[in-house]
């Protein structure tokens, strides 16, 4: 079965309202779209991709029970937190991980090699996702960042803290989950501390400390292509002031303008990592200075769109459609 030219592939779970918003926005633009979850592959999704001996590029066919696309006619890929491939139950247990890796690498590498617009390409995401590298890039791009120490040495941490001469924060260096048996899912928010609280347990692994940045408010800056959606997050509780993810009920949202020099720095950061999306977190000090905390190159935006009615889904559709850069 053929497919209209120019499909956008939306690779996401079915139970994903954020992906729903993007699919709806694409439909309103009459952009042909095929949505599927990687978890449907290989049992309910057919892939047949071929590569010639002397011409670069995959061609072929990708089909669900309801839709089919030619790979060479794909317009863009929106890859948003899909599930992992689910292997048929008749595959013996010892072969299941192998089979899953074959399905995963096969599908994602073929789609990832298509010369089309991608949002949240895994390779781009991975290159941009980590805080230590981001601090260097952000500073090189002209953004102010907190003074930071990454260490597993108590003596070095204490000496550095003495130089800071004020409160500190500690936050995870990298993403990693902590699952406590019998406990609900957890997050590890940023924690404010005094230098006197430092102890030997920081020598058990690498730690990332920063100076505490006084905040008038924080900003979640969502960048989609060349569009910026800047929203102040006003924290109305002590927990939310340290990390607004700790207390959503205490938050108020307000669109705010981005200073030109900050917008320029963000554009340079996007270009540095070849990003077409970024969810940036800034503190804005009482003096009005914007301080870069981090960028999540695939961060959530539905909560901002819902609170502010900003057209972030429409911006996604525009970019995937090819209407904006």
């Amino acid at each position, binding site marked *: 079965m053929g497919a209209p030219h120019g499909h956008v592939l939306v690779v996401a779970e079915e139970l994903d*309202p954020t992906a729903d918003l993007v699919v*709806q926005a694409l439909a309103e633009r009459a952009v042909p779209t095929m949505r599927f979850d990687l978890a449907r592959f290989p049992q309910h999704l057919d892939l047949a991709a071929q590569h010639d001996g002397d011409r670069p590029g995959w061609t072929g066919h990708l089909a669900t029970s309801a839709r089919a696309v030619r790979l060479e006619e794909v317009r863009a890929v929106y890859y948003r937190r899909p599930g992992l491939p689910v292997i048929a139950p008749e595959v013996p247990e010892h072969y299941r991980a192998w089979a899953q890796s074959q399905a*995963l690498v096969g599908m994602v590498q073929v789609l990832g090699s298509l010369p089309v617009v991608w949002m949240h390409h895994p390779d781009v995401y991975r290159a941009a996702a980590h805080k230590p590298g981001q601090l260097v890039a952000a500073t090189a791009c002209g953004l102010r960042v907190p003074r930071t120490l990454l260490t597993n040495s108590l003596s070095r941490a204490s000496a550095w803290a003495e130089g800071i001469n004020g409160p500190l924060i500690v936050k995870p260096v990298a993403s990693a989950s902590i699952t*406590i048996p019998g406990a609900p899912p957890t997050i590890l928010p940023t924690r404010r501390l005094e230098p006197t609280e430092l102890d030997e347990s920081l020598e058990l692994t690498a730690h990332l400390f920063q100076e505490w940045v006084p905040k008038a408010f924080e900003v979640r800056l969502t960048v989609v292509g060349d569009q910026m959606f800047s929203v102040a997050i006003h924290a109305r509780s002590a927990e939310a002031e340290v990390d607004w993810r700790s207390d959503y009920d205490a938050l108020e949202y307000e669109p705010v303008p981005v200073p030109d020099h900050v917008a320029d720095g963000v554009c340079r950061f996007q270009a540095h990592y070849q990003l077409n999306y970024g969810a940036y977190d800034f503190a804005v000090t009482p003096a009005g200075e914007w301080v870069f905390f981090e960028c*999540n190159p695939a961060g959530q935006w539905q909560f901002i769109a819902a609170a502010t009615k900003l057209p972030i889904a429409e911006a996604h559709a525009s970019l995937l459609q090819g209407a904006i850069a």
Partner: protein
Amino acid sequence: MSTITVERRGVPFGARGLQPAYTVAIDPSGFAFDPGRQVNVAPDGSLWAETPMAASSTATNNDTSPGNPPDEQSDPYAFPGDLVA
């Protein structure tokens, strides 16, 4: 929000202060995936995502579970190579 109490011995300094993740309880009887429109819809055909719903920066694809970390820095992305290295 409360802090989860766990034993401190052997716990790295930066791993203290775990909190329950902000999760969103949903009623699956209130909507269904429409394979034609490729979105979740309410019985009246309206877009489920446009109904008032709690939302956060964490796990807003509503499938948080043990082993599927809710931290927004822990997007459950599948990276080719990680599983086969």
